[in-house]
């Protein structure tokens, strides 16, 4: 057996799956070429290009913005990131999310009054149920 099973998947969907004779991926420590019967390897990937040499001799290119590369003797899995990610980008996104919350927070009152909110919710539920009942009666 001198082919590899290659799966490129991301959280948002499957990108590619098939047989290959060689896979070249941008690993953290430099580009790696993986031929069948490669030793098991697990590494992070930098943003870059994954090159798949098809069994038909064709070359396929996939851009990944990073992720995890898992290699077993006859199987390569690329867990591609669905989003751009880097420490600073993550931090920027985190700050953004925090800022939005803080801006909205300025208007809020202190503390949660569980009982009053629950009462409010119960009322809303009762209204919904009443609507449902009225609707059913109207049908009859």
């Amino acid at each position: 057996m001198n082919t590899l099973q290659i799966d490129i998947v991301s959280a948002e969907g499957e990108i590619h799956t098939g047989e290959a004779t060689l896979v070249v991926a941008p690993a953290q420590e430099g580009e790696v070429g993986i031929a069948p019967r490669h030793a098991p390897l697990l590494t992070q990937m930098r943003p870059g290009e994954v090159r798949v040499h098809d069994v038909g001799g064709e070359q396929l290119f996939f851009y990944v913005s990073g992720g995890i590369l898992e290699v077993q003797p006859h199987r390569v899995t690329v867990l591609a990131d669905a989003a751009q990610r880097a420490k600073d980008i993550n931090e920027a996104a985190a700050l953004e999310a925090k800022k939005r919350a803080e801006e909205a927070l300025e208007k809020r009152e202190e503390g949660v009054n569980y009982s009053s909110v629950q009462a409010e919710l119960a009322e809303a539920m009762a209204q919904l149920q009443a609507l449902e009942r009225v609707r059913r009666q109207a049908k009859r």
Partner: protein
Amino acid sequence: MAGAKEIRTQIKSVQNTQKITKAMEMVAASKMRKAQDRMAASRPYAHKIRQVIGHLGNANPDYRHPFLVEREEVKRVGFIVISTDRGLCGGLNTNLFKKTLAAMKEWDGKGAEIDVCVFGGKAESFMHRIGANVVAQNSGLGDKPHMEDLIGGVTVMLDAYKEGRIDRLFVVQNEFINTMSQQPEVHRLLPIEPVKEEEMLEHWDYIYEPSAEGLLDDVLMRYLEMQVYQGVVENVACEMSARMIAMKSATDNAGEIIDNLQLVYNKARQAAITQELAEIVSGAAAVE
């Protein structure tokens, strides 16, 4: 009895409303199908990443990542609440908030403080209105949520966990059971419940580049982000099916109203004709 003309205008306006609700129903139905496809699309990734985590755990039994360690004392808990952006979807959000509040109240009763991270416009306004401590938020995710819109909020919560500011993290979302029913659920995200480890037939290990610890950290981060992403996608599917049902019943109701109005209209018309005839007959009788 109202005049025939007024009733006719009323019927027209209800018909227009019915057209709109009918259109919304069909739009929601097609979006629901797409959302379900998206739910299925993230499954291979989830499966694979779980395998890798299981293996890493097996291969490095002595390294305990903070995400995997159960904390005895819980002083503060985090909730990630996922709701829809828009309404018109029946009791979907109300049910979800009810469940969230019950969970929050339980922790409050145990003396734990609560931080909330919200995704979706409805949860955002609800949490702010009740005065919860919202530490991160994002809304306007749309029908096709993207990972990049979620990373910010998730990172805030994961960092808080790493730094020990929160000791538990939960995610609250609607679970898609089938088109007719959705169920709000609270899942524990952190600490991660041990991944079911498969028996290894022979011991083998990966070559790690650069280090097993760094990799485990990375893989776990992605695993958690993916779980939140899956939650959001599932919630979209719930939103669409709930909206479809709500709009279907609205359309049915409009149909009933039209039927009733039509009846009233016919009666009014008949009464008018009868009256006119009576007038003519009595007029003719007077002449004779």
